């Protein structure tokens, strides 16, 4: 009789353990308030469950070791879930959905691990979405399927040691030699640089162009191409586990077929891509803020809710500016809520702050975002 009662209790406990392992470790996000469709709510549910089971338990270790050991396997699982090519056409394995769906996934991955979220954003938006929007048929057929399945990892390279906010002053040179372009120079701060199989790289095909932006061309580079190498990954304050490094081009030969978009029209590829990058990456700070709540509120027994807005392109700069600066403040508040424990690295609060801070710098500094918003306002009064 006692065994019967014990058996039932153990069975109940087993369910709780299994659900806690794969269910929500945090607060429920009120998606009715957020106005999400049924499918978007299901997507969030899937991503929350998946990330809390397969990513959140590893997040602290990834941060401490500055490495995501199971990245390749995780990428394939993301591919199976169908979330790597959210905005890509179905014929290449994509889901042909919109940017709100992409932001949702970005948010949930970042909620579990800010670093993995950043790498996911670089792969799925910076690389894949740029190929979708600017690639020709042959390029899309060649590169998209494996990027979308997760077999390949993608990256995008525009920044250089002396060309961050002033990206059009980049110095990486691309000289045309017959059917090839020969690249010389380097890129810096490149997310997924150490791991990427496919990289979109911006270079100057015409160093004398006036204005300088008119001399930029976008290229598709493959790991293993002669003359292309990567330096060891950087040791960063936050986003540790999202590997970042310098790319080195020494007489690197890229076939002319790998020009992405039109010759010397790379700046249009670059600038239009940045708007969408801001939009999708704004999911990163959102997820980080949610993570702070997930951990602070059980600690404090208080409730709150969050909303999202997606709008026109100038609003994209606004939304990432707002959410990034909010995220840093929210993460600081989170540490304060935990008091002394917030300062101890056994708790995740410090990692949330270090990860959140990146979003005020990377994907566009807050200063540049304010410039863009200012210009957009002025344009409406012309």
């Amino acid at each position: 009789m006692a065994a019967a009662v014990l058996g039932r209790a153990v069975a109940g406990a087993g369910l709780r353990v299994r659900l806690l392992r794969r269910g929500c470790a945090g607060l429920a996000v009120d998606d009715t308030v957020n106005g999400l469709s049924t499918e978007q709510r299901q997507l969030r549910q899937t991503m929350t469950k998946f990330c809390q089971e397969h990513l959140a338990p590893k997040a602290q270790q990834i941060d401490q070791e500055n490495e995501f050991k199971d990245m390749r396997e995780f990428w394939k699982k993301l591919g199976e879930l169908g979330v790597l090519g959210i905005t890509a056409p179905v014929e290449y394995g994509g889901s042909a959905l919109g940017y709100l769906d992409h932001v949702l996934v970005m948010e949930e991955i970042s909620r579990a691990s800010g670093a993995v979220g950043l790498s996911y954003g670089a792969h799925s938006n910076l690389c894949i979405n740029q190929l979708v929007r600017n690639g020709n048929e042959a390029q899309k057929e060649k590169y998209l399927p494996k990027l979308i399945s997760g077999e390949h990892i993608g990256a995008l390279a525009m920044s250089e040691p002396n060309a961050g906010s002033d990206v059009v002053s980049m110095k990486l040179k691309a000289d045309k030699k017959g059917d090839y372009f020969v690249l010389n120079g380097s890129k810096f701060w490149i997310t997924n640089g150490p791991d990427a199989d496919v990289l979109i790289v911006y270079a100057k095909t015409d160093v004398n162009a006036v204005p300088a932006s008119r001399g930029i061309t976008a290229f598709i580079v493959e790991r293993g191409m002669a003359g292309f190498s990567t330096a060891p990954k950087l040791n960063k304050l936050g986003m540790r586990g999202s590997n970042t490094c310098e790319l080195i081009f020494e007489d690197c030969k890229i076939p002319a077929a790998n020009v992405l978009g039109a010759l010397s029209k790379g700046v249009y590829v670059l600038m239009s891509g940045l708007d969408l990058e801001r939009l999708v990456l704004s999911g990163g700070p959102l997820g980080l803020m949610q993570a702070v709540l997930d951990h602070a509120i059980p600690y404090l027994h208080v409730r709150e809710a969050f909303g999202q807005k997606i709008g026109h392109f100038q609003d994209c700069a606004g939304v990432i500016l707002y959410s990034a600066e909010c995220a840093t403040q929210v993460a600081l508040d989170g540490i304060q809520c935990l008091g002394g424990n917030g300062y101890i690295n056994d708790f995740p609060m410090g990692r949330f702050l270090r990860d959140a801070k990146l979003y005020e710098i990377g994907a566009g500094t807050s200063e540049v975002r304010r410039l863009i918003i200012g210009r957009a306002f002025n344009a409406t009064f012309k």
Partner: protein
Amino acid sequence: MAPLKVLVGVKRVIDFAVKVRVAPGGHVVQEQGVKHSLNPFCEIALEEAVRMRERGEAAEVIAATVGSRQSQDALRTALALGADRAVLVELPGAGPEQGAGPGAGPGQGAGPPLVAAALAKLVEREKPQLVLLGKQAIDDDCNQTGQILAAILDWSQGTFLSRLELDPGSSSVRIQREVDGGLEQLRLQLPTVLTADLRLNQPRYATLPNIMKAKKKPLEVQPLEQLLGGPVPPPRLRVLRLEEPPVRQGAQRVESVPALLERLAALGRI
């Protein structure tokens, strides 16, 4: 060896992670604006059915639920997890969220006898060879629907399943049940009602492509009265009072057994 038709009963319940509160009035639990999801044991039952279809043992998996209009969410999830089509047997009048609803079971849904009656009607209509349910719902913990349904249909039943195998020839199944004394192996003739326990399988995630495909799968809404072919029977149970469990008191320490006995006597426990 004709592939089977499988009916899976599912229930929409308050998510396990939510802190449940009693609504003002003291008869029902607060459900408005509270996160709901598919009952975990129902998910396991559905996963088993979908795997049978993927192995070619089942031809069609139908997901069914008895509940308010909002239960469509649970059916959409079931479709995204692999069911071919879904049926909502809709409870009349205001949903349980408003505190009304006939046959109000302890979980504020229709209650096992009414759900079993509705499922029996669906079985009559759809003629599946196999009905799969979760062993119990996590809101009321009744653990009755499968058993009552088998009795109504006069079918064999296998409850608390931790393993299921279809025999070659598809006229019987071999099951393993988790019982108090250990694990029991049984062979049951089809048609049969089975209920899933925790260790039967590990359910899959609803991938984004499947979530989008589910939009196009048929979801039928049948009013309960129409399905029963008559008025819905009145509730068999009336909830007198619903309270949260008492706040846990801290433990008290005593120094010796006589002191313990004295304490217990003072508290009127012995």
